[in-house]
């Protein structure tokens, strides 16, 4: 398979570091990001309510000053909350952290304060349709445009991500279940395999124990050109070749 096709299928961002090694970043899709957003909205809402109570009690004498303070707090909560946390050390709002997400630059580095600022100003556009009311200091929109933009970009980027050149990724590696290694005889492939093909076989081998037998056969049938067999026999042959490749390396 040509290299480009592999990258199209993959939702990972490969970055080559200065050390000469390539790291793969797992990009988060719209669903976990929406959950994180919901959580952040709840936190902002709750904070505003609490601050509202406190300010009302304290400034009982002068309502005007209280309103002023509330408006400024509302401004910084609605515009500053996301920027402050995303520009911080962990690169994530409280919601994102809870979901195990963080914002990074496309190069894999932490984002700068400027990038955090830009991607969060453009939240307003991603919120379309449904213009949020900035006067009340609460930014709530449907995130329709952001959602569609995520679907139409390879790296799940909303408009703000595109302009600020950022990605939202998982902080933790994919949970890998391990089982028994397949018990097969190792078997030399009949043709020389390209590097990508070897990698695919090795991956197949190391993940095989996580799948049902039907699934294993379904996948090995795709490689029937190589094994010259289908079904159970093809699967065993393919696993054998994968084992041989891993032993040779």
């Amino acid at each position, binding site marked *: 398979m040509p290299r480009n096709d592999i990258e199209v299928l993959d939702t990972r961002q490969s970055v080559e570091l200065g050390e000469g090694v390539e790291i793969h970043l797992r990009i988060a899709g719209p669903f976990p990001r929406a959950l994180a957003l919901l959580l952040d909205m709840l936190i902002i809402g709750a904070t505003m309510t609490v601050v509202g109570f406190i300010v009302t009690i304290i400034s009982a004498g002068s309502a005007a000053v209280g309103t*002023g303070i509330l*408006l400024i707090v509302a401004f910084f909560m609605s515009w500053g909350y996301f920027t402050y946390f995303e520009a911080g050390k962990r690169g994530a709002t409280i919601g994102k952290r809870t979901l195990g997400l963080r914002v990074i630059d496309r190069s894999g580095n932490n984002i700068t304060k400027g990038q955090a600022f830009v991607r969060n100003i453009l939240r307003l556009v991603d919120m379309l349709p449904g213009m949020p009311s900035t006067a009340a200091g609460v930014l709530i929109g449907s995130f329709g445009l952001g959602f569609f933009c995520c679907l139409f970009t390879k790296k799940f980027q909303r408009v703000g991500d595109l302009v600020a050149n950022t990605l939202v990724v998982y902080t933790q*590696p994919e949970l890998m279940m391990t089982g028994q290694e397949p018990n097969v005889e190792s078997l030399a492939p009949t043709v020389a395999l390209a590097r990508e093909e070897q990698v695919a076989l090795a991956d197949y081998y190391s993940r095989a124990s996580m799948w049902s037998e039907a699934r294993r056969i379904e996948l090995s049938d795709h490689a029937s050109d190589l094994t010259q067999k289908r079904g159970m026999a093809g699967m065993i042959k393919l696993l054998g070749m994968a084992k041989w490749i891993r032993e040779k390396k």
Partner: protein
Amino acid sequence: MKETEFEAKNQPEWRKYDATMEVLERGDAEAVDISKVPAQVRARCLDLSLARYRLYGARMCEYLNHQVTRGHNLVAKSEGGVREKIVHFFVAGFPQAMRREWRLLVICWLFFLVPFFGIWVSYNHDQEWVHSLLGESQRQNMDEWYGKNSTGSMRDEFGSNFQMFGHYINNNIGIDLLIIAGGALAGVGSLFILLSNGLQMGAAMAYVMNEGSPERLLSFVSGHAPYELLGMIVAGMAGMRIGLALIKPGQLSRGKALMESGKQGLPLIIGACVLTFIAAIFEGFWSGDPWPVELKYWVGYVGWFLLAVYFIFVGRSTKARRIGSK
């Protein structure tokens, strides 16, 4: 070397690395010997490339990939010197960006001033336009605040200074950010908000100039107008920078052009917020207070003059240009 051997050999080292990372991620740099960390990260890079080359299982590759990513995030930190950056922004970045984008400056002023003066002039021929733009309730408000018979200080009607300061921060900077974000809709959003603001302000101007007390309105707005209007225009410029990346990406792909626009527009975005923040201070604590009218006008003139001097002359020295090109 077999995968299991490799893992067994390196396991103690990986455990130590994992612990170090955890401590550093908590921000506790004192607890470990930082000078050794870069070498440790490089060692994990080597482990990862070996594991990938030898086709070790996906689990180990994922694990090492995670360890390298963590280390990289901690070691490759480029940002620093916030104070230095702020100084650079004011002595070089912002005025240089304004001069670089002078075409957008002209376009945005036109999209504000043409409707502003257009609607004002139209009042002499046909009052319907201004009346329908302002609406019944707004005209009543204007009569109350800037009418021929209004007296007293503004703040009696507006409430305390601090409340208005809060209101201006929230509302006006919010509008600026809206203008900037509107730029991502191919620039249409930015220009539309500039145009509608021009119409609204022009209509209010025409109404008060003809039906009310011009002195009350002008003495109120003169102090903060330089910063507020320019802040709005700069927001429009930042929005247009983003919008133009979609309309006219030039040699770049649209995606790349958007990224570039984000970088180039950043000084304008920050600048718009700074200017509008200054405007909010003036509007909250100066404009509504009972100072002599002449003094208020002069504060306005001086404001325009200082802004012009700042944007024309600051950041032209060789040293400033070197800072700006970074």
